[in-house]
């Protein structure tokens, strides 16, 4: 069968993949759910900004400032198209997914969550989609409820419908959930969940940190009211996040971070805020990295997000089948590859995930071990930690084979 992506060619675009580690081993990078590697053209775009047209955006009238503004706003348009938002004003640049969710919690949340209101999360949420809501609810007198995730890593949509139908005390005011779990790997039916919520007039925040980098995103089709994601998990630099907010909602929201750049007029006693989306981007933004992110999007567009998804599906199916050859292994999340994004979390009985990751490091393999910032889920699974291998466009079956060999080596070291 012909490969879906020309992975050999893709790998040449990523200088780090040629890196030799201390003992001469090639890097086998399987921690893409934490952050992805960057292709040359992203690195070059950042260098080009600093070496050719470094300047502050939006205000100055000289040539290089106009160039910088054009690139920065061009990035916004690229993001808009990438997620198929209707308006450019709906795209706000933040630092990361965490800041995007905080913006929703502080701005929308403080205005809309009142005593007795409930926010519905799920048990598999990343801490970034739990802690901001806990802080909000503590200050506003709201409550948090967690939709349960079952043994195989799925949600019960009937239970969701029942919860969302509650009236009076305990009425759900907002749903906030990840489209894909960073531990279980499950891709959740965002469109269906949002349809159910919208039937009850409940807005939905979608945490797309794990999903947007790996599959086609269409905010008009899923209908989400808010979507948060990070550039660095999709070939872009760190320090750039996106918050999409439906325009009708955004128009009602008050600024979160205030000061420079987000104003029209400032007087001694009052301020007139800037238009959308600028009033949500206080201070000089991360211009260079937003421009780098724009390059990452262009790179992904050239490959095609459907091809990204197909490649990962093929790799995930292979990883899932091979990893289950290992004795005494427990794999978390769905058994079926197509219900998953490109990551697999696991534990080998008798080997703590940190020891596992240390041994894998001998093979040049980078995987994550720990609680993956999902301690609520860890409690549910009754484990302290797990190991996680996560894939992207440049990973190959050969790398998965190296992983499997290394895991068997770990078993031998621990004599199990």
């Amino acid at each position: 069968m012909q490969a879906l992506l020309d992975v050999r060619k893709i790998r040449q675009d990523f200088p780090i993949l040629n890196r030799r580690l201390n003992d001469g081993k090639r890097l086998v990078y399987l921690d893409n759910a934490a952050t992805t590697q960057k292709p040359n053209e992203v690195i070059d775009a950042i260098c080009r900004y600093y070496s050719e047209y470094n300047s502050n955006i939006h205000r100055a009238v000289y040539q290089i400032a106009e160039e910088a503004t054009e690139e920065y706003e061009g990035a916004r348009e690229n993001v808009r198209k990438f997620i198929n938002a209707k308006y450019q004003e709906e795209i706000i640049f933040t630092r990361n997914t965490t800041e995007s969710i905080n913006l929703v919690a502080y701005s929308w949340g403080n205005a809309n969550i009142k005593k007795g209101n409930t926010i519905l999360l799920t048990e598999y949420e990343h801490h970034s989609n739990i802690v901001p809501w806990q802080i909000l609810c503590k200050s506003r007198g709201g409550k948090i409820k967690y939709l349960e995730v079952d043994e195989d890593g799925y949600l019960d949509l009937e239970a969701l419908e029942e919860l969302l139908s509650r009236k009076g005390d305990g009425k759900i005011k907002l749903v906030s959930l990840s489209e894909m779990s960073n531990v279980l790997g499950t891709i959740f039916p965002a469109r269906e969940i949002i349809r159910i919520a919208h039937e009850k007039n409940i807005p939905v925040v979608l945490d797309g940190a794990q999903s947007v980098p790996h599959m086609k995103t269409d905010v008009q089709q899923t209908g989400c009211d808010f979507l948060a994601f990070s550039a660095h998990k999709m070939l872009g630099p760190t320090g750039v996040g996106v918050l999409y907010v439906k325009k009708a909602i955004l128009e009602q929201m008050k600024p979160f971070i205030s000061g420079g750049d987000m104003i029209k007029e400032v007087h001694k006693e009052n301020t007139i805020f800037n238009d959308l989306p600028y009033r949500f981007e206080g201070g000089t933004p991360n211009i260079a990295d937003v421009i780098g992110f724009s390059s990452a999007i262009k790179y992904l567009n050239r490959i095609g997000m459907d091809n990204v998804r197909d490649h990962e599906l093929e790799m995930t199916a292979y990883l899932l089948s091979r990893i289950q050859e290992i004795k005494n292994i427990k794999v978390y999340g769905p058994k079926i590859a197509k219900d998953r994004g490109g990551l697999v979390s696991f534990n080998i009985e008798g080997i703590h995930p940190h020891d596992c990751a240390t041994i894998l490091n001998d093979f040049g393999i980078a995987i994550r071990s720990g609680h993956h910032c999902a301690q609520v889920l860890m409690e549910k699974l009754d484990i302290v930690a797990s190991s996680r291998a996560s894939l992207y466009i440049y990973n190959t079956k050969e790398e998965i084979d190296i992983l499997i060999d290394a895991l068997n080596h770990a078993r031998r070291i621990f004599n199990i």
Partner: protein
Amino acid sequence: MSEDIYREMILDHYRNPRNKGKIEDPDIRINDSNPLCGDEISIDLKVEGDIIKDIKFDGRGCAISQASASMLTEMVSNKPLTTIKDITKDDVLENIGLTNLGPARIKCALLSLKVLKLGMVKYYVDRDPSSAAQMKDESKVF
């Protein structure tokens, strides 16, 4: 290489930890966790006339943290409580034979020492609250 880390002594203490469990009615009970990985260690101590008469640890974690805790309990058992003051991180790393750990894994190896020092400080401060300022730095491991 990890073969140097996971030698028989570490694996033996990991699989057959010494002094694991709880002490009924301990004089000191203290616990802490490693935020990086969520590993937890709790230590119970029975102290008689300033001598550690009994020590037990409990917790969940990697081979390094659990083996290190197991060996640390052996190191201080039946010694004066004040010896805890003098134990350095290098003492612990040498005792378990892991002097080449990277910055992430070194925290696993030293979690039990951190807990033990916290326990000692708490013991003295509970008995003499005025010693709090003087004891403030005694629980520092790093």
